[in-house]
């Protein structure tokens, strides 16, 4: 059956990529997956198709003008216009001269598994929840062509696949199309056609070979090479249960009990309105890799902020090596805070926003300088850190703002590990990072743990522990 074409791009030159010549055609009812490394121009291409960016010749799209297009931005919260989801969806409907009924709205909520978040405003949503909310607000407008820019990067693979398959089914039945950029092989597998964008050219790719070479979660890749042995499992109850699994590197005298570096004892924490933790305890040991898994919104980020002393717990005790972190309300001295910062490095979900300096190098030097590493050691620290995250040398003297989003994340990570903290907390570090980047990050984590330090990674993927 010959499908009716929706649009066709012929040798389009992308902005920022003078060498590029993009050929891409999309039929009605087709679902296209677009992969490629960080900085290859996937986002720029989607923005061009949506009519937001001009091409390299300064022209806006012509071919796709007649089509109604919905674009879901990479950062979920960029999609919001108002503060509440319902208002946002209503706004979209109003622009199409339609009204939103309760029934349709509730159908949409359950479609994206957002029933419980109905009344929440965007601000209080976790990264994964906001991502689904953003999807919903664009999806509800039923565009002919839906462009998704890394729209599932904060979901666990099961949820992502479930939602995406549901979307595909509906899109196909209505003869609409989807183009999705992603690094996740599970998602690519569900699409009809997979293309790879590389050096300004689009080439067909096979989903299996598309990215990492296998469909496993990055954390599994990290653990499954036989270099780690499972040590202990702890359950922490936030809004939902989280599982904290500890792994030690093989050959590091596994049977020896490692000294404890961080301990939470009966820690409680609540946001205004809602309790997150009630009397929870856990223990983190030296030279161990921890994986904290839990569904989105369960409180993983909050737990990490508490561990790093960046947010103060309401009651209970947090012990970081020999420092006791008192509950909120009691003061801690500036010296103690500095000691804690030296011991613990933390990378948040939008780590790239912390970049500020003129060059990547200067930004990387910020933390070690603050934490009192002298000038002679500074260069080594920075160089080590930048090499560890796999940022090429030609980028070191460039402004961090000229990097692509994946490179920015790597630069941000370098700016954290440059201070060589004993405990490294990484909140969802794999989001939006390409396969090559994952390899580097995993390599970095392995080295880090092998040096007797501790790394704690959070993520939504559940570990099937038997497979390790």
């Amino acid at each position: 059956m010959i499908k009716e074409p929706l649009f066709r791009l012929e040798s389009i030159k992308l902005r920022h990529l003078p060498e590029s010549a993009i050929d891409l055609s999309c039929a009605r009812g087709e679902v296209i997956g677009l992969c490629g490394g960080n900085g290859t121009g996937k986002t720029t291409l989607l923005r061009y198709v949506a009519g937001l960016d001009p091409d390299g010749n300064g022209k806006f799209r012509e071919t796709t003008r007649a089509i109604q297009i919905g674009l879901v931005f990479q950062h979920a919260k960029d999609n919001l216009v108002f503060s509440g989801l319902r208002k946002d969806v209503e706004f979209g409907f109003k622009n199409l001269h339609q009204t939103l009924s309760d029934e349709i709205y509730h159908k949409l909520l359950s479609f994206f598994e957002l029933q419980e978040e109905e009344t929440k405003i965007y601000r209080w949503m976790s990264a994964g929840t906001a991502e689904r909310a953003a999807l919903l607000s664009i999806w509800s407008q039923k565009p002919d062509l839906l462009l998704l820019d890394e729209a599932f990067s904060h979901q666990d693979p099961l949820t992502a696949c479930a939602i995406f398959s549901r979307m595909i089914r509906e899109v196909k039945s209505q003869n609409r199309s989807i183009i999705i950029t992603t690094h996740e092989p599970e998602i690519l597998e569900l699409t009809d056609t997979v293309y790879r964008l590389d050096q300004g050219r689009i080439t067909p790719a096979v989903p299996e070979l598309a990215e990492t070479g296998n469909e496993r979660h990055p954390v599994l890749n990290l653990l499954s090479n036989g270099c780690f042995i499972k040590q202990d499992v702890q359950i922490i109850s936030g809004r939902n249960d989280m599982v904290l699994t500890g792994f030690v590197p093989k050959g590091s005298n596994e049977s020896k009990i490692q000294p404890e570096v961080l301990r939470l004892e009966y820690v409680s924490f609540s946001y205004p309105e809602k309790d997150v933790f009630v009397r929870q305890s856990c223990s983190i040991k030296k030279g161990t890799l921890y994986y904290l898994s839990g569904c989105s919104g369960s409180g993983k980020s909050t737990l990490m902020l508490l561990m790093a002393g960046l947010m103060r717990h309401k009651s209970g005790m947090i012990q970081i090596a020999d420092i006791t972190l008192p509950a909120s309300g009691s003061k801690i001295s500036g010296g103690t805070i500095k000691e804690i910062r030296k011991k613990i490095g933390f990378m948040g979900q939008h780590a790239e926003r912390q970049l500020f300096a003129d060059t990547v190098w200067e930004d990387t030097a910020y933390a070690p300088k603050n934490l009192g590493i002298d000038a002679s050691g500074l260069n080594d620290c920075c160089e080590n850190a930048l090499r560890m995250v796999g940022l090429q040398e030609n980028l070191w003297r460039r402004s961090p703002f000229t990097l692509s989003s994946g490179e920015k994340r790597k630069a941000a990570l370098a700016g954290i590990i440059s201070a060589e903290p004993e405990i490294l907390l990484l909140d969802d570090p794999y989001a939006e990072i390409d396969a090559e980047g994952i390899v580097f990050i995993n390599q970095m984590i392995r080295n880090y743990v092998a040096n007797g330090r501790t790394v704690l990674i959070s993520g939504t993927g559940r570990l099937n522990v038997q497979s390790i």
Partner: protein
Amino acid sequence: MYSQYKAGKSLIHRIPACVKIIGMIIFILTGLTVQKPVFAVIFFCLSIVIAIAAGIHPKKLFLKTRYILALLLTGFVFNALSRGWITALPVFLRLYAIVILAQVFIFTTAPEELMECAENKFHVNKEYLISIMIAAGFLPLLQDSFHEIRTAQEARGADWMHGSLKSKIKGMIPLLVPIFRFTLQKAETLGEALTIKGYSSQK
């Protein structure tokens, strides 16, 4: 404005925004025009009752209004010294009651609801309303990103509290540069999000 609103299911919450606005205006006008001192006391008590009915704890109400209360009290003292406290007290009670009512109104009315009412019942221009709503939504976002960036830099050992004034000012750069960037970027993406959602001001 956004951060003040507290979702709830109290009697006051359930009154439509328009009714609340009109009710409040009538209430305030009566409160200001009726001169009997006894009435001022009743007016004040009534406002407290309304606040409690809206589920606001008196202590919280006091904390929220403490600055304006201090201002009113100063006025009260001057007034009492010059004209005697029998004249001054009713004035003070009336004014404070109005402050309480305004507070209750902000607490119990969702901005969205208010905008809707302004659009449908008072026929305020839709363009203005959307601008106001977006601006109002922008502030908490800015606040959040400020918090997020501050946390990230603190994790990297930033110290805002200590050092000389010069070093303190210099130390703000890692905070200010990302904030400015975020604000500009956000403004741009906001415009794009509006475009994507099919909004056009020419309509």
